[in-house]
């Protein structure tokens, strides 16, 4: 193989190596686990459970008073065949509304981005309430299924 032919293949080999390295890193990366005894940790656990299609675990993190009349099956049926999503916590936007209530904003990216992807972004907000030591998601929250089952109605 001549020098010219060798240099010709340097860039494809470098790019190929980078691609494989990125794929390996991406597939082995885990999100940082927040403390589940905090408002943002509660939101993370809730979204992670939905992402894993563990709707029982997700429903357990919802305010039972607000969602009286609903169950995990209602949550699951409203999710349907949802696109995989990425969620980014808006740290600057977290706000303590009262001693018991905290506002947690999250940016959610669905599907794949880029010009050939079919992704979209939405900004969701969660109001997390302290119930004697354990935090639960109160009020209407993504994926907004309470209208379908709550005893008090929407």
């Amino acid at each position, binding site marked *: 193989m001549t020098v010219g032919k060798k240099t010709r293949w340097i860039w494809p080999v470098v790019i190929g190596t980078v691609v494989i390295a990125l794929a390996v890193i991406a597939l082995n*990366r885990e999100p940082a686990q927040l403390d589940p005894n905090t408002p943002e940790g509660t939101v993370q656990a809730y*979204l992670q459970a939905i*992402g894993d299609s563990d709707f029982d675990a997700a429903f357990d993190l919802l305010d039972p008073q607000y969602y009286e009349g609903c169950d995990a099956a209602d949550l699951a049926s409203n999710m349907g065949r949802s696109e995989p999503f990425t*969620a980014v916590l808006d740290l600057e936007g977290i706000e303590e509304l009262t001693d018991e209530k905290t506002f947690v904003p999250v940016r959610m990216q669905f599907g794949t981005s880029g010009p*050939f992807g079919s992704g979209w972004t939405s900004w969701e907000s969660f109001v997390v309430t302290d119930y004697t030591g354990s935090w639960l998601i109160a009020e209407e929250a993504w994926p907004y299924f309470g209208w379908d089952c709550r005893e008090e109605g929407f």
Partner: protein
Amino acid sequence: MGGGIIGLLILGGITVGVIAAVRRVMKKDGAESQTGDVIPYLLLALAVGTAAFALAELAEAAFPGDAFIFDTTTQVAASLAALVVAGPIAFVLWKRQSRRRVTNTSAAGWIVYLAAIEAVFMTALAIASFGVLNSLLGDGSSASWANVVVFAGVVVFHEFASRQTPPTGEGSDLHRVLGSAIGLVMTSIGTAGVLYWLLDLLYGSLTPTSSNAEPAIWISFLLVGVPIWGVRWWSSWPSEPDISRKTWLVVASVAGLVTAVGTGTSILIMILLYLFSDTDSAATHFAVLPGIVATASVAALVWAHHKGRLGIERNAPVQIYGYTMAAIGLSAAIGGATGLATLAFAPADFINEPDAFVISVATILVVGLLVWGWFWTRAQAVPRELEAGTIPRRLYLVGFGVITGLVAAGALIGTLVVLFQMLIGGEPSDSLVPQASLFIFSGLATWHLLRNNAIDSALVESPDVVTPFDVTLICSHPGTIATAFPKEARLKVIYRADTEGVVTEGMEAAIVEEVGNTSSLVWVEGSGYRIARARG
């Protein structure tokens, strides 16, 4: 582990297969392209775009920033699939076009390709960089820096390639012009924002109102825009402006001036409203002033910079700039006049807050007329015979005349609908006065434009076409009359036997005029001449 190796083998096999297939197809197409290689370059742009965005997606999956929930499997799968197909195609096509470019730098495809890459990836780089900076400096949501690295890599790679084999010929500035536009837009937004922030601080110190504007987002715009604009616009240009740079100078000059005049007009309206109508306190009324002044200032700077480079010599770009501004001014005047007429003749309750309305539309009318008058007067100052046949003037008079004519026709239809409704017993509609006013003023504008076009046309029309004709001249001596006739004349001289019928110098012009390029018989005698029209 075993699954991973099989996956890699599959990826490698597909990659090698795609490379072999693309090479085989390209070898058959070895001849020099007659269309400037546009199609191979467009395919290359598509392949590079797909591969680069897939790489960015993969990089974002590997380094997801502050994401606290993510599922990378879909991202990785989609990215690898796109890379395995688009990557080899991009590689083979790039190699092929690099070889061909050495001998043909003026290929239109290279110019189009660089422009497409600049438009897509410089925009992507600017947006990604802005996101990262804004999340670092301000309260913007966090963004992944991985995209910045990938898009910057694509831009830098193509920058080096374009320096190695610079595009030449008409349109070769196109990619730099597009980059300049992206940089200028971001720089202008950032500058206006920072200026707004400073003016708002000043306004807040003088009055009890303040919007608590934050500078971080505007500084992010500046930090992204200034380097792009600097590299693309301020580094030396290899040649005289080509059509793309001239077009950009016109676009930026018009956009800058329209924004400056528009915002200046809104300031004037705001002042007049404060003086002549019931408004809130001065502090509240003028609370938006910092934003408007900042926008007007930056727009004026953009206009001054680009108009200065456009020059003052009345060439085609300057004419396009002038006639575009005249059209915009005339449009504003039509709108203002229609508004005023509506206020004057429509029912009293048709317009809420008539004081504010009259001040606004009257100001728009005056400013529109001033803008139109300024640019139309400058066009009129040029000798008409020089200006009349130019394409920008024709486009303005005919093209804009057709537009105003269509508006007038639409308004006339609207007016007649209302009138017919009233005639057959319907309720009179409030839209009658605005429709009729719009018809009158846009009709007047159409008449003005098309009338000027008719005058221009008469001035530049080619002289009457003269068809060949026969002249039989019976004389003693024809003198030099043959040179006085047009070349289409076929002159036949029959000599008289005497010396009575000589064509004198004073007689020549009169005979030629009286013949009038028609076949004639001319009899010259001592007392003068007689002309008879020839038959047939």
